């Protein structure tokens, strides 16, 4: 992990404090369904007060892991500790966790109020206290006036808030959320994201969120774990994962990225020089990476870290390195624009840098203009800084 990311003492980052015991400890957990291994020797440490996201494509084992935390599935091997207590053999109804289900699983035969009160009733909470706590929970999600309604009389967003109130009213140590925003439309999803974050911060409850939506994971989480085929590939803060992906899989899964194959030409003091035959130019990458000369590597560059400019010299291959800009400048390549996608706030360009190898570039649309500076079939020069790229060996 780079030094620059560590030096923020005012922020709540319990995972950096080695003296703190993790609140949830998933210890080498494996879950086998017949021949299929849904979760494979996964170890995770989640701290108190975190909003931790499990991110991955469907079938990566994230939901199985969540269901094991809730107690609906039991690990084939390994164990789960919550607040130092071994959860092996503890049934779901005795665990200090509550879950918000993907489709909310509200009881259709009970009113909003009865739904929220259900968990407290199971604990034998007395009537005056029960009433007060249900009222507070409904107040928190702004559903007071809808207390007597049945779930089918509510909108999707309201149902989601009932589910949230119902799972929080018991003041669980950990709240598990299974795709909490998947059933909402885009605008509502964005608003609810912030509501969720505010509630989490206010109550200080540890949230574990399962999602397949990387944008959701990036906005919500303090830290996240990227999962693939039952294993955790990388754990980190959203910016760590975005800026410093550990593997090609993570780099490709989170956001878009250009992956350029190459071979280490020279290891210099400032960085590494990589020969990339696909680009026809050398790439200079700074930042500490342990590589040998001659090793095959992959250079990953985010599209927004590349600048695109019209090529004043005009297109046309040259001898030797056909696309390299004259003078053999590093991190600079010529190409032709193949696609332009105008997204309003930004534009995405796909630039052919030779033999159909496409580099994706994102540019913010800073100026209000109907004309494009760079358009289809334009000859362009792409440039990026030496610290924009990242060398991936896995």
């Amino acid at each position, binding site marked *: 992990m780079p030094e620059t990311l560590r030096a923020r003492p005012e922020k709540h980052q319990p995972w950096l404090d080695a003296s703190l015991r993790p609140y949830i400890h998933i210890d080498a957990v494996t879950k086998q369904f017949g021949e299929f291994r849904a979760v494979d020797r996964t170890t995770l440490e989640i701290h108190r007060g975190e909003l931790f996201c499990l991110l991955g494509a469907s079938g990566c084992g994230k939901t199985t892991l969540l269901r094991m935390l809730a107690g609906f599935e039991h690990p084939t091997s390994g164990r789960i500790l919550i607040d130092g207590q071994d959860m092996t053999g503890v049934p779901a109804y005795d665990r200090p966790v509550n879950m918000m289900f993907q489709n909310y*699983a509200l009881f259709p035969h009970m009113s909003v109020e009865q739904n929220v009160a*259900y*968990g407290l009733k*199971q604990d034998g909470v007395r009537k005056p206290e029960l009433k007060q706590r249900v009222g507070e929970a409904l107040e928190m999600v702004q559903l007071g006036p809808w207390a007597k309604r049945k779930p089918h009389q509510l909108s999707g967003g309201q149902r989601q808030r009932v589910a949230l109130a119902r799972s929080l009213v018991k003041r669980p140590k950990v709240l598990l959320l299974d795709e909490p925003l998947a059933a909402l439309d885009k605008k509502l999803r964005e608003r609810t994201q912030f509501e969720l974050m505010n509630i989490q911060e206010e109550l200080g409850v540890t949230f574990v969120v399962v999602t397949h939506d990387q944008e959701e994971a990036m906005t919500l989480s303090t830290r996240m774990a990227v999962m693939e085929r039952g294993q955790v590939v990388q754990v980190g803060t959203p910016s760590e994962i975005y800026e410093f992906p550990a593997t090609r899989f993570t780099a490709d899964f989170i956001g878009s990225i250009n992956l350029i194959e190459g071979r280490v030409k020279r290891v210099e003091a400032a960085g590494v020089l990589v020969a990339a035959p696909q680009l026809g130019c050398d790439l200079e990458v700074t930042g500490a990476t342990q590589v040998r000369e001659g090793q095959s590597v992959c250079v990953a560059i985010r599209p927004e870290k590349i600048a695109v400019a019209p090529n004043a010299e005009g297109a046309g291959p040259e001898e030797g390195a056909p696309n390299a800009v004259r003078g053999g400048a590093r991190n600079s390549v010529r190409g032709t624009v193949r696609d332009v996608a105008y997204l309003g706030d930004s534009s995405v360009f796909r630039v052919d840098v030779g033999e159909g190898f496409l580099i994706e570039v994102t540019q913010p649309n800073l100026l209000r203009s109907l004309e494009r500076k760079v358009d289809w079939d334009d000859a362009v020069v792409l440039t990026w800084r030496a610290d924009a790229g990242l060398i991936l060996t896995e």
Partner: protein
Amino acid sequence: MTATAGERRKPKGRATALRAPFHALAQRIGLSGRGLVVAVPYFWLIAFFLLPFIIVAKISLSQMIIGRPPFTDFFVWSDAWLPEIQAYLDNYRWLLQDSLYWVAYLNSVKIALISTLFCLLIGYPMAYAIARAKPTVRTLLLLMVILPFWTSFLLRVYAWMGILRNTGVVNNTLTSLGILDQPIQMMNTDFSVYVGIVYTYLPFMILPLYATLEKLDGALLEAAEDLGAKPWKVFLTVTLPLSLPGIVAGSMLVFIPAVGEYVIPELLGGPDTLMIGRVLWDEFFSNRDWPVASAVTIVLILVLVIPLALFQRHQAKVQEREA
């Protein structure tokens, strides 16, 4: 493009040509296409339910005579212009006076209620198990529930006679094993009637229960458990209330035919198993008293229909309030 359009038009033309006469007829009697569709079930109900009911009701108001038909006419054409109605309430008065009928009604309802309860107690776990079984096993189990329908109902009742009688399978096994000194009297008792009714109507309880339980969202059960409910609490607070429609439907399907059951008490019951179906049979075929038999029928229908209608109305009101 034009070729396909032409091909498409052809069958349409034929259909219109076929439909035209029906259309014309329907329009002449003032029926639209929609009205015609609705008319079919109405016709069915009127022809096979309402008309027979009216005929039976008419007979119940007449008096028994020796003759053919064995009851007095309802309309007497003494005047050439207006028929005179001859209705007698004697039959209904008779039903009130003779305690036999009341005892038979009450006993029928009692036997039907207890049988329904047993069907529910036996059928619910079965339906639950089928609904929770793996899809491949589920089809097989459902098939096994329906399988008895493929043999004659009478044959199955006779089979029970073979099982329950003093020299039947159960008694023979128990005596040969030395558990019993002498056979227990099971045939021709109320017990054998209950066995017969519960066995016969069990599928009618299982199928609607299965239909509601199968639709039950498993996530709801998990949510209840997650909120701290132990398994039996989950069942009482979530599964049971949500399967109530199935319980009501199944209970009706068992209770209603069981009240009027004739064959099972006749074949399996004892001489003192009094059920209204047997009384009805005796009045009709032994006494040849059609009017009293008809009155028994009408009262039976009212006893069954009025509570059901009230219940339905109550349900509809509840639903209206919720919507």
